[in-house]
């Protein structure tokens, strides 16, 4: 068997363009549908999300103190929420 014949035998037969398109669209639909099934928790399922340990900022007072220390040490302010716009006026 010569080289050309081996290549010819192992090459995937050419798929007509419309089949390729169709399977691509189907694949994308399934991928999109997969995302759609991941629903956010329902209002009555938020019990665990309301725990203090699940909050982005579990202790408001501590965050405030930390930010106070940070801004004084870094001689800069702002960048965290609405505490200031970096004007240095608070």
């Amino acid at each position, binding site marked *: 068997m010569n080289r050309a014949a081996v290549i010819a035998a192992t090459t995937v037969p050419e798929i007509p363009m419309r089949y390729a398109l169709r399977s691509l*669209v189907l694949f994308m639909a399934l991928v999109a549908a997969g995302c759609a099934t991941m629903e956010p928790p329902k*209002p*009555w399922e938020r019990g665990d999300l309301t725990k203090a340990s699940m909050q982005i900022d579990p202790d408001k007072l501590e965050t405030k103190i930390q930010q106070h220390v940070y801004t004084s040490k870094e001689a800069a302010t702002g960048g965290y929420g609405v505490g200031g716009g970096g004007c240095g006026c608070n």
Partner: protein
Amino acid sequence: MTGLRGGARVALLVAAILQAGAALSVGAGDAAPAFVLPTASGETIALEKLRGRLVYVDFWASWCGPCRRSFPWMNEMQQKYGARGLTIVGINVDKRRPDAERFLRQTPAIFSIVFDADGKTPEAYAVKGMPSSYLIDTAGNVVAVESGFRDEQKAGLEERIRALLPPQ
């Protein structure tokens, strides 16, 4: 191009199937979805058995702040209008029963409390927020839906309850 259209059709079908899962919310004028749920003592409360009474169904959870504030008001309503035909049913949706029991020790209820950890009932009512309450008339139809519990809702709700009860 026919291939693409076929694919688009499949995508639409998938989208339609997924949409079908989303329940429509229950509003005023709709028949209240039935439920049969257990109380702490092991008895069951069925909405159907409460036909002829004005029913105030409240979905609550131990982790919900406004729910805690709504309990004294619901106790008051039960006390004031229970004899005239009002039944308040608090449906607890906590996943863990001890959480609900702790809440009830801190915030006692004189109205009926039932438990639905599976969330089938809030699903059927398509509850939009916690707490949510449904005023159900003597024929089993929803007359009012309230989401959340704020002090300014109290007067209006009591007025509605009073209007739906037989005159003294």
